[in-house]
């Protein structure tokens, strides 16, 4: 065919394709006339156009397979170490596996020999390979294929020799024997047990998949290739962003966890994920993300972004695809129909599998043993832990971030210390060798420290005792490590672990030693010292040794400044720690400046907006609050909340605490209506986030109630107080300090709604608790005593009130500043009632000054002292002065509180009485009547404040 003919055909093909029916027929007829020699060609082209598109694709795929098959295997017959390769067993991403023999005449041995395909081989990676090999050689378990030998051929080709297992892949074993669901689960439990054993010895498998689990002739699972994938991991470089790595690429994509796909550090949680994929396949015969025709790239995208379908649903969705009969085939391999299998999987088994497959490692089972136990529970028809809400997870996360006293030994801690002793022995042997060895031991240290760092006490349950024993053993061994920098890093890591376990004495001891080591010239870097100081500062914080903590944090910052370039984002955490330390030694100015510097550093470095930022802004907001800089506190708190919602999600302890603090700052400014919205938001989030008995919940309820009382929403307030009481009684009991404080809050509500007799009872109960659990100098006791005095005055016993308050004067210094002012206020009021005006005036003026200083000249908080001063002025015959004070109070109340609010009514009533007594009767009566109406609406006609107003109205002639 000529190029011209080709072109004619191409044009005609395009033309015909655009035509239909008669037009097409006419075109073809014309073409037949003009190009009789090409008419058959065009017909053939049009016929070929109708063929299915997949035909060529299939042909190409087939051809590649053909091409590949034709290549003879170059490995057969090769000699590796003392082993001779006889056959190829398999090929994985990390290298090829061969059957190999060793014979020295005495005895013959068959083994599986794995050649590791490492790119960019260098001395460092080889050294690491050899070290890892030793760990694996020590892993002995009846269900784990043993590592026999290993080395490097010609110094650059690493290989491992493992026990040869003649067995069948677990999935094929199950399918061929048509094992039912229960039998499969029993087999799976053994696999979990074995994986758990390895985790306890600090070996993560990293590549769990059916071809690595063979069922031997005794029906026992044998796990292959434990930890081998570790050899492919990139070395961590400080500060370097992690990339999707060769290791992640090399792993079997179907079984890789999201963190492995991203090239992030691999933990036991990654094995739990792979176990989930395995269980998915054993149960449903499917892969979580479908499988047909997926490239590794597509699969990785799915692993990162898509939620897997439930195993039961995966089986259903296959019906609709071109898999006729496949679900039935899968089900019959399990002795069931497709419908029966679906029913069997639905519910608990779905939940168990999906819990393993969570994208967030922390949401998976904490250990292989936990997973195994859940499967066991399912088999025994007990409720499983998977599924339902995630409160436990949430609570764990909360505990983690709050660095609270939550103690549980993590598996990482468990295994780690065993390794310390192991490496110690090795290092001691090999110290004398040269540079390579130094490099190796450095890696060892980094490795160990990495595990310590990742030891998250909340992440895994475990036996504290065992962890303890191992840690203690590690401490005994650490002295054998010769390199001081490595010893220092290990001491630091172990100190941190003791700190996490709440054993602060051991923690400080180890950290002292670490710091002492790093202080000696030539040992480690300035950053090493900074890290150890930082770690000790954290422990000092737990011990309330704030001055020492501050000193360490300050030195750590100085060292970090000297190590990082100016403005480096890595300075921010050191600055954040220092700021907290300053805050705890009451250097608020310094703390605020340091937080602001840390945040500025983050902005400059482009790291602003992470959870550290949110933490620091939250703390800064509290510092501003303490310093009385409310506007800044609110702005900062709102930004902290925005970031927390962004980085941690709306349902997180961080956001709840920030919201609660925002509410309190608003309250302090007298902005109850705005503030209560924050408190309500905090409460609604807390109820979703925490388990019902979480101790923060009643506190937040009371903060909602506190505002509701002032806003006149008495019923709502009482609902919250009643619920808080229920929760506290259930969680803490009637004799607890927390319940004692509840009684105080409740009393503060009741006194405002005029139930003084009830308040007297509450305060006596509160004092009884304080006496029993604390003492008479405790804040709880003193505050209840003060409340009792207020109640006595309201009940008309001013003299009794005075006696109590004078008693309290002797202990004035034990009270907070704000409460000292309140004490002055109450005593002033009692003395007003008793006619001791001079002293009353002095006390009330001092109280007023303190309130105004604290909350500002327009705050709702100064209404009480203003009112009290107005009453005093009336009592001592200066109604004009009273009018001035009461007018100011009414103006503030009008501006800050909702229309018809009881507090407005209270101050308006006082204003009215002052006006009437000053001779402005009409104005006075008008205010008193309006106030009375509002008070009646709020408290009813029998309230003492209403009755007092009635008397005043009558006296004014109304």
């Amino acid at each position, binding site marked *: 065919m000529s190029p011209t003919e080709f072109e004619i055909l191409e044009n005609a093909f395009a033309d015909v394709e655009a035509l239909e029916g008669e037009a097409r027929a006419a075109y073809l007829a014309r073409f037949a006339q003009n190009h009789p020699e090409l008419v058959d060609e065009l017909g053939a082209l049009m016929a070929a156009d109708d063929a299915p598109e997949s035909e060529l694709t299939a042909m190409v795929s087939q051809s590649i397979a053909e091409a*590949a098959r034709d290549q003879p295997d170059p490995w057969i017959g090769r000699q590796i170490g003392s082993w001779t390769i006889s056959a190829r067993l398999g090929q994985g991403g990390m290298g090829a596996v061969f059957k190999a023999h060793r014979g020295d005449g005495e005895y013959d041995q068959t083994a599986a020999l794995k050649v590791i395909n490492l790119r960019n081989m260098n001395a460092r990676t080889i050294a690491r390979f050899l070290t890892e090999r030793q760990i694996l050689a020590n892993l002995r378990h009846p269900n784990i294929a043993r590592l026999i030998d290993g080395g490097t051929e010609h110094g650059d080709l690493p290989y491992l020799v493992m026990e040869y297992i003649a067995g069948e892949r677990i999935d094929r074993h199950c399918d061929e024997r048509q094992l039912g669901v229960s039998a499969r689960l029993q087999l799976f439990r053994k696999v979990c047990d074995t994986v758990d054993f390895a985790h306890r010895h600090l070996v993560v498998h990293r590549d769990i998949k059916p071809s690595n689990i063979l069922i031997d002739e005794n029906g026992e699972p044998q796990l292959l290739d434990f930890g081998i994938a570790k050899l492919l991991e990139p070395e961590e470089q400080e500060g370097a962003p992690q*990339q999707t*790595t060769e290791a992640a690429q090399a792993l079997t994509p179907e079984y890789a966890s999201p963190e492995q796909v991203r090239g992030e550090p691999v933990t036991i949680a990654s094995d739990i994920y792979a176990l989930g994929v395995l269980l998915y396949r054993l149960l449903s015969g499917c892969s979580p993300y479908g499988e047909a025709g997926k490239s590794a790239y597509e699969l990785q995208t799915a692993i990162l972004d898509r939620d897997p379908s439930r195993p039961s649903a995966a089986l259903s969705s296959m019906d609709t695809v071109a898999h006729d009969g496949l679900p039935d085939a899968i089900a019959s391999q399990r002795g069931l129909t497709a419908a029966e299998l679906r029913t069997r999987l639905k519910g608990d088994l779905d939940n168990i599998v999906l819990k393993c497959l969570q994208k967030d490692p922390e949401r998976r089972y904490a250990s292989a043993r936990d997973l195994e136990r859940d499967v066991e529970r399912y088999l025994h028809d007990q409720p499983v832990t998977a599924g339902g809400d995630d409160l436990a997870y949430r609570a764990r996360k909360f505990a983690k971030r709050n660095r609270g006293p939550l103690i549980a030994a993590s598996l990482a801690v468990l295994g780690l210390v065993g390794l310390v002793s192991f490496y110690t022995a090795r290092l001691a042997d090999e110290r004398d060798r040269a540079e390579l060895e130094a490099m190796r031991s450095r890696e060892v240290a980094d490795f160990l420290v990495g595990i310590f760092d990742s030891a998250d006490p909340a992440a895994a349950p475990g036996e504290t005792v065992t962890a303890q024993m191992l840690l203690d053993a590690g401490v005994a061994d650490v002295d054998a490590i010769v390199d001081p920098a490595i010893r220092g890093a290990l001491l630091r890591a172990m100190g941190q672990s003791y700190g996490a376990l709440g054993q602060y004495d051991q923690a400080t001891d180890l950290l002292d030693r670490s710091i002492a080591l790093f202080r000696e010239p030539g040992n480690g870097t300035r950053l090493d010292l900074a890290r150890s100081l930082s770690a000790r500062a954290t422990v000092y914080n737990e011990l309330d040794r704030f001055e020492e903590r501050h000193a360490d944090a300050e030195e750590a910052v100085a060292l970090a400044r000297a190590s990082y370039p100016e403005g480096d984002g890595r300075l921010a955490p050191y600055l954040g720690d220092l700021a907290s330390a300053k805050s705890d030694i009451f250097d608020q100015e310094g703390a605020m400046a340091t937080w602001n510097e840390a945040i500025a550093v983050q902005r400059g470095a482009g790291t602003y907006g992470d959870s550290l930022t949110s933490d620091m802004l939250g703390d800064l907001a509290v510092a501003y609050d303490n310093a009385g800089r409310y506007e800044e506190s609110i702005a900062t708190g709102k930004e902290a909340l925005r970031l927390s919602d962004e980085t941690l999600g709306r349902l997180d302890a961080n956001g709840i605490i920030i919201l609660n603090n925002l509410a309190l700052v608003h309250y302090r400014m007298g902005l109850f209506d705005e503030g209560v919205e924050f408190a309500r938001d905090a409460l609604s989030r807390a109820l979703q986030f925490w388990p019902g008995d979480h101790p923060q919940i009643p506190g937040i309820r009371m903060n909602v109630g506190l505002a509701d009382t002032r806003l006149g929403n008495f019923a709502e307030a009482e609902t919250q107080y009643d619920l808080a009481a229920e929760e506290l009684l259930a969680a803490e009991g009637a004799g607890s300090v927390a319940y004692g404080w509840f009684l105080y809050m409740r009393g503060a509500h009741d006194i405002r709604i005029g139930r003084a007799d009830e308040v007297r009872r509450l305060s006596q109960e509160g004092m009884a608790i304080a006496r029993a659990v604390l003492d008479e100098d405790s804040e709880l006791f003193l505050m209840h005593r003060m409340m009792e005095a207020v109640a006595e005055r309201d009940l008309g016993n001013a003299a009794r009130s005075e006696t109590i308050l004078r008693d309290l004067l002797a202990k004035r210094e034990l009270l907070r500043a704000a409460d000292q002012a309140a004490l002055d206020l109450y005593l002033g009021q009692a003395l007003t009632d008793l006619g001791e005006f001079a002293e009353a005036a002095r006390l009330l003026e001092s109280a007023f000054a303190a309130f105004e200083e604290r909350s500002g000249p327009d705050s709702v908080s100064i209404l009480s002292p203003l009112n009290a001063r107005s009453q005093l002025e009336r009592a001592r015959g200066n109604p004009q002065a009273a009018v001035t004070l009461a007018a100011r109070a009414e103006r503030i109340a009008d501006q800050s509180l909702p229309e018809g609010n009881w507090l407005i009514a209270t101050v308006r009533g006082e204003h009215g009485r002052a006006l009437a007594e000053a001779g402005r009767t009409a104005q006075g009566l008008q205010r008193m009547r309006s106030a009375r109406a509002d008070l009646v609406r709020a408290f009813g006609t029998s309230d003492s404040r209403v009755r007092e107003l009635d008397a005043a109205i009558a006296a004014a002639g109304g």
Partner: protein
Amino acid sequence: MSEELDITGLLRVWREGEIAAGEKLAPLVYDDLYERAAAIFHGEAEGHTLQPTALVHEAFARLVKVDVEWQSRAHFFALSARMMRRLLINHANSRRAVRRGGGAVHLPLQDELHADDVETRGLVELMDALQALEELDPRKASLIEMQYFGGMSHAEMAEVAGLSVATVGRELRFARAWLRKEMAGGE
């Protein structure tokens, strides 16, 4: 170490028009595809298919590793597609030699038996048809190559060939029909 930098750099200058860069890249890609295909076949092929799309994407992930613009990636895929085709041509040629009984490649018995089946004949025919197409219209042959040996999207092909996406679709449709016609006629 420097391997990955080299590849990325080569990819860039190649895309910018330096032909020599493509020539340096080609053997790297060829070897990788060859090793991979052989390894997969000799192994279990678990979780892998021998689809060219997958092979080429994986080669990219192994060799390039870092993030590059999608245009550079498209060029890499196009190069891989060419190498894949070359690999298959070499294979088809050795097939022909076996059939003539004069091949230098030793084949185990089982493969001898396999050598005459339909698919293998299909490969030789496909390669011949593609060669014929290349002589008549190199651009269409290259589009076929990119689609079937490189698994490339129409947008990627449009980028590499300097055509509109619509033109790519039109050209491919004709080229496919032409290839099928040619192979059917060759029987």
